[in-house]
């Protein structure tokens, strides 16, 4: 049984393939991708496109039944104007 999952993560600063253990929590995925793309620590959203949903940081990837090679979107949280 394959215990890893390959995904593509797109961010405003680039797009890269990653391989994670299926049990990896979304928060760890976000942190790995954040560092890869050169963002500063902060609040991020990891989003699935189909269905359109924001992945909860405390849940493991496997709980979303993400398909091999699926593309996820990483964006900094919008925050607010000042």
């Amino acid at each position, binding site marked *: 049984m394959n215990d890893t999952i390959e995904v593509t993560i797109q961010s405003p600063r680039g797009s890269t393939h990653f391989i994670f253990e299926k049990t990896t929590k979304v928060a760890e995925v976000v942190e790995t991708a954040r560092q890869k793309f050169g*963002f500063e620590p902060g609040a991020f959203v990891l989003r699935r496109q189909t269905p359109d949903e924001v992945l909860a940081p405390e849940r493991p990837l496997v709980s979303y039944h993400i398909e091999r090679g699926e593309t996820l979107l990483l964006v*900094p949280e919008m925050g607010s104007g000042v």
Partner: protein
Amino acid sequence: MREFTALEPWATRHEWSFLWDEDRLLLVVLMRSAVDLERYIFEFTLDNYRELPPSIELVHPETGETGTRRSYPAGGRSYFHSKPVICAPWNRKAYQTLGGPHSDWAMADWASYRPNHSHVADMLVLLQELIDDRASYTGRMER
């Protein structure tokens, strides 16, 4: 501009129209709101970028008028200030020295205030999210 290449998937997904005028250092991007299908044209003037933030203005897609309330979206988590101006440290026009509302920011430090929105690509993705944000976007600022 190298920053733009990472944006290709986003541009395709949201059907952005791009114009990059290298001589004038002017980037023009047309976006459409997923909420009401309104079109917004964002003009980024990038002289002295990254030393200074971009200067961002909006152009009405039909009349061509620039910087009026009719050319701006409203709401957007308070980014779309009624002045009208995009009120964020990554917009040169938000600084009081250039007629904006903020006297409390140092323009030279702009990239440190919101570091994850300190690249043009970050800003464009954020602007699309703001006009797609059903919780805060309320359509064109003025008809």
